[in-house]
């Protein structure tokens, strides 16, 4: 009885909308379906198409660029900011509170805000160009082959750095102060303390934050859909966007399912690799040697 009350409804909903779709994803990738009629068996056709589809290859490449660049941008900035706000003082809490603000905005809202700001004719940045005649500000930020992807990654970082700042702030606050006492007694310099105390003690936080950045940036969708829809060319067409377009614009649901399977497997592999590579499982004793 308690089982039924406790776990019944959740099983139903979680099963129907998560577990069934996970299995369905793999199954659907072996069918042709246009979204209306009855799905027909396709064998390996969708998977063969996946291998031969140059756009899918490009999408995978763009996605990996997004993952790597997002990690490289977000991790150091979030760590520095997190360590900063973990300190004391009233103004640091004010800083911390303001840092959180981007987290309150939806990705859609952030996209619209930046698109107004970066509009090459009427945007705020273009206004500064006309005022200061700074050529570097005169760019077609979201329409240029070279700039579109980096700009989108930076906007995404603007959105997510606050979250990872919070993680590092919490991580720093959980480091026992005795370690810093000991380092100070040993006469360690600021950098030495950072390298030998803060950084090793933060490895749990670094792993958590990295897994979240990598799995998150693999599946960024909203901003690409809203701001560039994959263009110019294929420069910003990430895997999740190509999957969405295959399903809901070209009605090729079977092929979209194959793309989705690749996305799911990549996400699981990436998280698993980071966890294994960093020896996350053996981190239980991260504070060994202190107590």
């Amino acid at each position, binding site marked *: 009885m308690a089982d039924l009350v406790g776990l019944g409804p959740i099983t139903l909903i979680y099963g129907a*909308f998560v577990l069934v779709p996970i299995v369905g994803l793999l199954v659907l990738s072996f069918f042709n379906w246009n979204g209306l009629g009855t799905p027909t068996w396709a064998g390996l056709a969708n998977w063969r198409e996946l291998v031969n589809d140059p756009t899918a290859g490009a999408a995978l490449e763009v996605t990996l660029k997004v993952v790597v660049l997002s990690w490289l941008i977000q991790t150091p900035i979030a760590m520095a900011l997190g360590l900063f706000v973990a300190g004391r003082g009233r103004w640091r809490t004010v800083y911390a509170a303001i840092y959180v603000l981007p987290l309150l905005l939806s990705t859609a809202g952030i996209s619209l805000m930046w698109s107004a700001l970066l509009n090459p004719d009427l945007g705020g940045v273009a206004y500064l160009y006309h005022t200061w005649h700074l050529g570097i500000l005169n760019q077609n930020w979201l329409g240029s082959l070279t700039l579109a992807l980096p700009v989108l990654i930076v906007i995404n970082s603007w959105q997510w750095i606050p979250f990872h700042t919070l993680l590092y702030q919490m991580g720093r606050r959980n480091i026992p102060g005795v370690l810093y006492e000991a380092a100070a007694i040993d006469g360690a310099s600021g950098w030495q303390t950072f390298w030998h105390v803060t950084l090793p003690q933060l490895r749990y936080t670094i792993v958590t934050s990295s897994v979240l950045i990598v*799995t998150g940036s693999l599946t960024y969708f909203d901003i690409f859909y809203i701001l560039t829809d994959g263009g110019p060319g294929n420069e910003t067409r990430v895997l999740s966007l190509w999957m969405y377009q295959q399903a809901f614009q070209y009605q090729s649901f079977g092929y979209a399912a194959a793309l989705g399977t690749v996305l799911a497997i990549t996400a699981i592999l990436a998280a698993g690799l980071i966890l294994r590579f960093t020896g996350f499982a053996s981190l239980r004793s991260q504070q060994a040697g202190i107590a």
Partner: protein
Amino acid sequence: MSSTAVRSPLGRRGDAPPMDLPRWDDRRSIRSRARRRLRGSGTFVLATVWLLVVLIPLYYMLLATLRNQGTYLTANPWVPTGHLSLGSYNSVFAAGLGRYLINSAIVTVVTLILLLVFCLGAAFRVMRRATPASRNYMKLVVIGLAVPIQAIIVPVYLVVIKLGLYDSVTEAGVILVLCATAVPLSVLITVSFIRDIPAELYDAMSVDGGNEWTLFRNLVWPLSRPVLATLAIYDGLNCWNNFLVPLVLTTSPNHALLPLGITKFQTQYAYNVPVIMAAVWISMLPLLVLFIGMRRQVIRSLGGIALR
């Protein structure tokens, strides 16, 4: 130094020191504090730069909402000079933003209620001792944690169609999917939080003759309340700001939630930037009010979620 003071920050998992306790580095020598201040100036500059990076776009957006289509094009968009008005807010409500606000509010509240009831149910099961079945159950839940919703959105759409919940007036499809995708993390966090509570408490209460209901009311409910509050903030934020699920599962403009709705404004009012910015600003406003009201709890909740 006393051993208790040293041990407390090193306690078990889930026993992290409250943020406000004075920490050991409070007692550093004056010399090292001075050195620290010097070292901190670099990070202080970076921190202030980032403060501006956060605030400048938000300021730009806010100022743009106070213009109209004409003055936005002619006035300096960085300085609040000339004629400012709230006209864009009127326009945005006249264009139907209220509908999206109501939709978002209903979906968020209903999703949260369902989700928190689920989490309570799971917490209850864990309090009543884990059986092998319930342990396998948790493994199933973890699977959902590894697979991102974006990857399975196509079959989710299929299931919703088959159940006749596509674009439903009651938003049932959107609510159930948002709820289901939030289940893994939420249940895992509730369960790991409740599991840290010693079994003796439960035993003691059983010995005292407590039945299921008194156990629930006097033990599970009070113990899970803080973790449920944490989840409400985290999952509520995700619901309110979700774009993909309503995009795929609804089609009538009347059934859109805020993020999708404001992008519809973008298509409709391509050149009326003040109206679009007002829509974005209003969509954030309820969250901003909540955030200002409970800043500490929000920061702890968002940061704490991932560290569990």
